[in-house]
């Protein structure tokens, strides 16, 4: 087994060792999903539509949003932050593997588990609340590709936030700020269609919208034809750009490392 595959596998094993906190954080997101369902059903349930969303479409949007929320949500950045703060990162630095690729491998390992859990929840919700409009097979393929791109994208955002621990000793604040900013700008809290024009324009030039808005729009068929493919291309561009940016940040950050004692 190659080194990075082995790391992904051990991350997966580790996630099973932490199944209680994993299930807790999953159930938190499920509660959130249920609340959103209740809210939007009250608004749209009697055949209304708002900003072009009917109730079945909104159900689909909420499920996609829930799914992307679950991916790369729990372990990567907190594990990294605590290792940087405690100095355990010293051990990671004497291993014959690239730090950034290693963390990505771990995130992918967790993501497998997260995707399986989220898909199960989605299936249960679909049975309980009735169907949603399904896209054509071609659209569906593009949608799956964009979901796959969400994993490295979310990872890179979380990774760079984790690196900030080389400057600050408290990660909770960074994590909460990241959650708030990306929750709004990705469209996970409210679809971008509900934003005022200026905020929508801001959101569209930032990487966060590629996390939730892009796959949701693909699923709903809001950008048929070329624009849909372009949206996935934009995701890939963001991955390349953020990967490079994260590397630069790492090189600056690691010079600041201070490990006292042992």
């Amino acid at each position, binding site marked *: 087994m190659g080194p990075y595959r082995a*790391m992904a596998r*051990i991350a997966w094993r580790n996630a099973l*060792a932490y199944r209680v906190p994993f299930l807790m954080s999953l159930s938190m997101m499920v509660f959130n999903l249920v609340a959103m369902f209740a809210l939007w059903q009250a608004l749209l349930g009697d055949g209304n539509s708002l900003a072009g969303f009917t109730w079945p479409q909104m159900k689909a949007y909420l499920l996609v949003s829930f799914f992307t929320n679950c991916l790369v949500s729990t372990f990567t950045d907190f594990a990294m932050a605590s290792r940087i703060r405690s100095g355990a990162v*010293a051990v990671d*630095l004497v*291993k*014959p593997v690239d730090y950034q690729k290693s963390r990505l491998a771990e995130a992918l390992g967790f993501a497998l588990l997260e995707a399986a859990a989220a898909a199960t929840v989605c299936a249960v919700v679909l049975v309980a609340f009735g169907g949603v409009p399904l896209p054509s097979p071609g659209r569906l393929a593009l949608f799956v590709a964009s979901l796959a791109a969400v994993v490295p994208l979310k990872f890179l955002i979380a990774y760079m936030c984790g690196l900030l621990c080389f400057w600050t000793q408290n990660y909770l604040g960074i994590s909460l700020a990241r959650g708030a900013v990306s929750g709004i700008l990705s469209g996970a809290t409210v679809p971008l269609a509900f934003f005022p024009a200026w905020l929508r324009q801001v959101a569209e030039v930032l990487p966060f919208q590629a996390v939730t808005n892009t796959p949701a729009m693909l699923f709903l068929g809001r950008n048929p034809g070329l624009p849909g493919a372009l949206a996935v291309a934009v995701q890939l561009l963001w991955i390349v750009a953020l990967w490079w940016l994260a590397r630069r940040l790492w090189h600056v950050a690691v010079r600041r490392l201070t490990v006292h004692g*042992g």
Partner: protein
Amino acid sequence: MASTSALVEATGLVKEFRRPRKAPGLAGALKHLVTRRFDVHRAVAGIDLRIDEGESVAYVGPNGAGKSTTVKLLTGILVPTAGEVRVAGVVPHRDRVANARNVGVVFGQRTQLWWDLPVHETFELLRDMYRIPAADYRRSMDRLCEVLEIGPLLPVLARKLSLGQRMRADLAAALLHEPRIVYLDEPTIGLDVSVKDRVRAFLRQLVDDGTTVLLTTHDVGDIEEVCRRIVVVDEGRIRHDGPVGVLRDTLASNSTVRFQLAAPAPLHLIRERLPDAEVTTGASERDLVVRFDRTLRPAGAVAATVMGLVEVRDLRIDDEGVADLIRRLHDRDSPAALNGAG
């Protein structure tokens, strides 16, 4: 010595840390937000160190002397503020991946085991990380299981290990890929005597097999039993560098007799009779300490002389070892002690 044979070569190594200077209290914290002030602390202040293939070096010094920081510079964990390091031709902090293949690192106060998984999972992951061929891995594991007796620990969760078990597993983890040089940062800290003995015997074996070892420690036993060369650092500089054997031989000629007397010691009388010895009092006037060269006069003669002058209740004879040297080296203003020993 040809410069090509050096495995580790550090020149003019400096590492500075910035510490924020904050006044106490909320006012101080707010002030720090506006006017950020830092104190520069030089943990390593210009170290030149050369280690050849196959050497076993003890790197000693008081707490905060810069030992651990040096190890972290040599392993590439920290980036030096100034100076150069090369380990087996690689600049460690620039090419961490290449460096990691050549070195093994053990931190006494940290573990590299995956905390929530059984020990064997860590070894299998390391096998994949270092791309160790299956046959080499099996051979390496068999040897490590035998000498470190870690076989029974393999199915145990790493966090359930005792400190001694953990250290043995950590040693095995650091040596699995058969590194050319092993850095050990206080490997026996907190271990009981019997585990210490096993770890030392293992390290001695490692040195005999030709692995280069750099060991930081506060434990004299580690130095005497494992290392042939001793480097003493203080305040980020090297204060002494030489063979352990020479130190021991020089110091072995020094002896100390401690007397407990029935009455205050007549120092001038004793000094008159023992002109070449160092005669002082200990905690009280009734505690007498005589330090002398055993090659000039046997301990019995010293004891007989003192007993002839004053009533002795108890006495104890101590031979000096490396411990005393290090203690004296730790007293900063004692270059004389150094010269006397070297």
